[in-house]
């Protein structure tokens, strides 16, 4: 039985008489212990999807089944109880600004009528886990973005949830802070066995931490599977675009206006390194062998799920024969290659 099962989920909104279909017939299975990424451009419907997973948004049609329990069949009261198993963190942290760090972490426990003393003990344990023990008396306004998200994570863990939903949890953070928050999430997943669902528009986040991923475009789930598979062999246009938009640096936006123009003059290849070839100097050897420069338009290698993974986009020389030779050479070296066209 999957931890989270989404069946034929549809969500429509009505705004001023116009019906907007935010999600169309979504089917997903998320297993216990997964770190499951849901990625899409802004407006794709991913935030709506994650809010359907804890019924903050009620689906128009379809089912959300958490550990065998159909959320749609629960009363309002039962649903509130169920929500203590499904914690959530947010892009803008959403801490109580008038309460100090300790009281923020205690908050969900007090809602669940845990007595104050126990709640405080538990909150201190959690602040230890997220590395903020010395800040328990501070107020959110005195903390940095990363620290606020750590408090939010501690608060989310307070009720011993089985699932943690992260809605663009690192989108407001700088690259270093993003990396440290992702490390913390990884650690929580490993040590506490909590299933994590991550909503993001950054492929880098998915590659850094997720084992599975679903790609949402215009409310439709276009592709899902293992991160490795999708990253190496993206089938959908949406997946390809998301991979190409992704920069080596976490959290940066790629859309510099001059970039497409420069690339368009060249024939471009996207090369995917597998675990065996990531640390071989393939490109350097190729340049030596053909005695011709290639233009490295983008390059990135990463640790994905314990394997060295990477990609590069090369602008090839104009000579057609040379292009064929280079492609053949790269294939011989066991690299995945595909031509990249037009609108990168």
């Amino acid at each position, binding site marked *: 039985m999957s931890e989270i099962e989404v069946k034929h989920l549809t969500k429509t909104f009505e705004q001023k008489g116009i019906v907007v279909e935010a999600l169309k017939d979504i089917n997903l299975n998320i297993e216990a212990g997964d770190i499951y990424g849901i990625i899409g451009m802004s407006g794709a419907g991913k935030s709506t999807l994650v809010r359907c997973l804890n019924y*903050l948004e009620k689906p128009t049609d379809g089912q959300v089944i958490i550990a065998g329990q159909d959320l749609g069949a629960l009363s309002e009261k039962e649903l*509130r109880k169920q929500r203590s198993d499904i914690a959530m963190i947010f892009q803008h942290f959403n801490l109580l*600004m*008038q309460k100090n760090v300790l009281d923020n972490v205690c908050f969900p426990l007090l*809602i669940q009528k845990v007595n104050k003393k126990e709640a405080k003990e538990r909150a201190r344990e959690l602040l230890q886990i997220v590395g903020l023990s010395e800040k328990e008396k501070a107020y959110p306004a005195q903390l940095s973005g990363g620290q606020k998200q750590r408090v939010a994570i501690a608060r989310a863990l307070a009720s011993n949830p089985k699932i943690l939903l992260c809605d663009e949890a690192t989108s407001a953070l700088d690259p270093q802070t993003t990396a440290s928050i992702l490390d913390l999430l990884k650690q929580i997943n490993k040590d506490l066995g909590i299933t994590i669902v991550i909503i993001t528009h950054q492929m880098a986040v998915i590659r850094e931490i997720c084992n599975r991923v679903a790609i949402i475009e215009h409310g439709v789930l276009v592709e899902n599977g293992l991160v490795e598979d999708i990253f190496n062999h993206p089938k959908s246009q949406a997946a390809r675009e998301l991979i190409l938009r992704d920069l080596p640096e976490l959290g940066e936006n790629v859309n510099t206006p001059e970039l497409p123009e420069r690339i368009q003059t060249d024939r471009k290849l996207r090369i995917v390194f597998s675990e065996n070839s990531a640390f071989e100097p393939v490109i350097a050897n190729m340049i030596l062998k053909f005695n011709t420069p290639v233009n490295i338009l983008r390059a990135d290698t990463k640790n994905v799920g314990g394997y060295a993974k990477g990609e590069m986009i090369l602008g090839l020389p104009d000579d057609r024969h040379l292009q064929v030779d280079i492609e053949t050479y790269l294939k011989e070296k066991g690299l995945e290659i595909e031509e990249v066209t037009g609108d990168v």
Partner: protein
Amino acid sequence: MFDSTIINMLLEGIRDTLYMTLASTLLGYLFGLPMGILLTVTDRDGIKPNAPVYKALDVVINMVRSVPFLILLILLIPFTRFLVGKSYGSTATIVPLVVAAAPYIARMVESSLKEVDPGVIEAARSMGASNFDIIFKVMLVEARTSLIIGATISIGTILGYSAMAGTVGGGGLGDIAVRYGYHRWQTDIMLVTVALLIILFQIFQTIGMKIASNLDKRK
């Protein structure tokens, strides 16, 4: 400058004004606070939208607020007489003051509560908070600075209204100002009462803002 009867009268005036202002504010909040909460909760983007309830409250509040206080005072005389037994004096004045203050306070509360970040409310819901929890443990707590500033503004307005009630025998400093300053042309007494009203207003304002800023942890 003044003999002891006049000084005593002024002291009683201060006492009556404080009595009317504070009692009316308190009672005003007794009715206005729940009304403000109800407005926020039942509004379209509230935590439990309910158009009929919102609309009904909205209309009643606007109706009462659009009547000038002086007219309200006169309109309510039969009601006041029914409740208090007479229509003059400071206790009687509390009745129209509360009727005028409650809708004003409701609007103040509504605008304070609407400042609460919807994200924080969503976070609370995601933790399994009930609407009751959200109102009392999130909205009222997060909005407390703004609520206290609202109360400070309200108390100032009610102080002004209480002085206005003096024109129809409401008691307090306003009453003295009208009787001596207007009817008897004793400008000196009128100026003193005005000065006293200004001082009272300043005290309320200073204390209110001080409390609000001490409670604000957002900085």
